[in-house]
């Protein structure tokens, strides 16, 4: 493949890292990542992935930019208020790095389209903002055997985890069922500081780059837990649950469903919904 003079200049500071080099850069340029959500987590993650030269980045988000997004969703600008977030993000990313192909998907991720939306990508980064979508993404990635970077943030802290389907703990291994509405506060209710989401979102991009380039140890089977009041990090050991409904030895979730505030298990023959 080879790199152009401009690419060598653009990526020079990461090319000189022995773990990356031209070989690693070419891998990045050939890889593709889907980011679910162009919000607090998706913003820094998308920026760092585009900056590093991930060849194809898909961004799926059903909403338009709102003024209340701008304190933390740093990929959007004041002139973007009212614009679909996937489109707004795409503009900034393209301006940062024209090398990268961005697919802006102005739509909700649903049980009906999840397979088709996720399937073309090497890796998924979950920056969504509700439990139903998170469990849907987790289920879809396990069914498709697509690596997933999970992360969440609220108030001053958050958590992150890399999921290698059927090899490491998935979201349902750790939290078998999502909470009902109201049991865990949302950012809208409890608030969040942009820099805290930024810590998690940047970490998610970092973990994605590790997998795509192929260096370091993935953040698997350890939940990264960040307490931003004291700026302390803890790693807690998690593991695959043999009884996990999605990735266990006898999975009961073999197709995707999204109902109300929680995903439901479907028994019976596996069918891929499209």
């Amino acid at each position, binding site marked *: 493949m080879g790199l152009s003079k401009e690419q060598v200049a653009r990526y020079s500071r990461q090319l000189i890292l022995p773990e990356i080099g031209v070989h690693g850069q070419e891998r990045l340029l050939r890889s593709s990542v889907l980011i679910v959500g162009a919000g607090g987590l998706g913003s820094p993650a998308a920026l760092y992935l585009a900056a590093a030269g991930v060849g194809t980045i898909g961004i799926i988000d059903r909403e338009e930019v709102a003024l209340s997004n701008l304190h933390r969703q740093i990929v959007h600008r004041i002139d973007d208020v009212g614009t679909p977030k996937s489109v707004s993000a795409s503009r900034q990313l393209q301006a940062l790095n024209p090398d990268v192909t961005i697919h802006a998907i102005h739509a909700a991720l649903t049980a009906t389209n999840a397979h088709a939306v996720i399937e073309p990508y090497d890796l998924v980064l979950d920056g969504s903002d*509700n439990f139903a979508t998170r469990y849907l993404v987790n289920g879809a990635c396990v069914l498709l055997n697509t690596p997933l970077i999970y992360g969440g943030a609220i108030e001053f802290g958050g958590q992150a985890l890399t999921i290698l389907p059927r090899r490491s703990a998935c979201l349902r291994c750790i939290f078998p069922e999502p*909470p009902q509405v109201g049991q865990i506060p949302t*950012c*809208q209710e409890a608030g969040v500081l942009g820099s805290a989401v930024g810590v998690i979102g940047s970490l998610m991009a970092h973990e994605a780059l590790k997998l795509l380039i192929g260096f370091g140890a993935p953040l698997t089977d350890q939940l990264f837990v960040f*307490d931003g*009041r004291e700026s302390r990090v803890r790693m807690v*050991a998690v593991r695959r649950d043999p009884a996990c409904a999605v990735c266990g030895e006898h999975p009961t979730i073999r197709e995707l469903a999204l109902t109300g505030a929680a995903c439901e298990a479907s028994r019976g023959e596996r069918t891929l919904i499209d």
Partner: protein
Amino acid sequence: MAATVRIPTPLQRLTKGQSEVQCEGKTVAELLSDLEKRHPGIKERICDQQGKLRRFVNVFVNEEDIRFLQGDQTAVKDGDDVSIIPAIAGGSNLL
């Protein structure tokens, strides 16, 4: 036995902003009851009506998941570190 219970960010408003609370108990179950005595209202966020851990929350004793130890009967020793960690989605309640 006195152990340090680490309170997750979304529940710290129930412990007056404290991220760590010293609690007494020989098991995780006793610890959670003591935590409830010191900060009423917190236990129902973590446990259901039957006193079982809610399925979107995990408890770790010295960074090990109690579901792979003895559940809420997992023994707690003096000076142990007990973390309560819930799933976090962020965002809003709108689907």
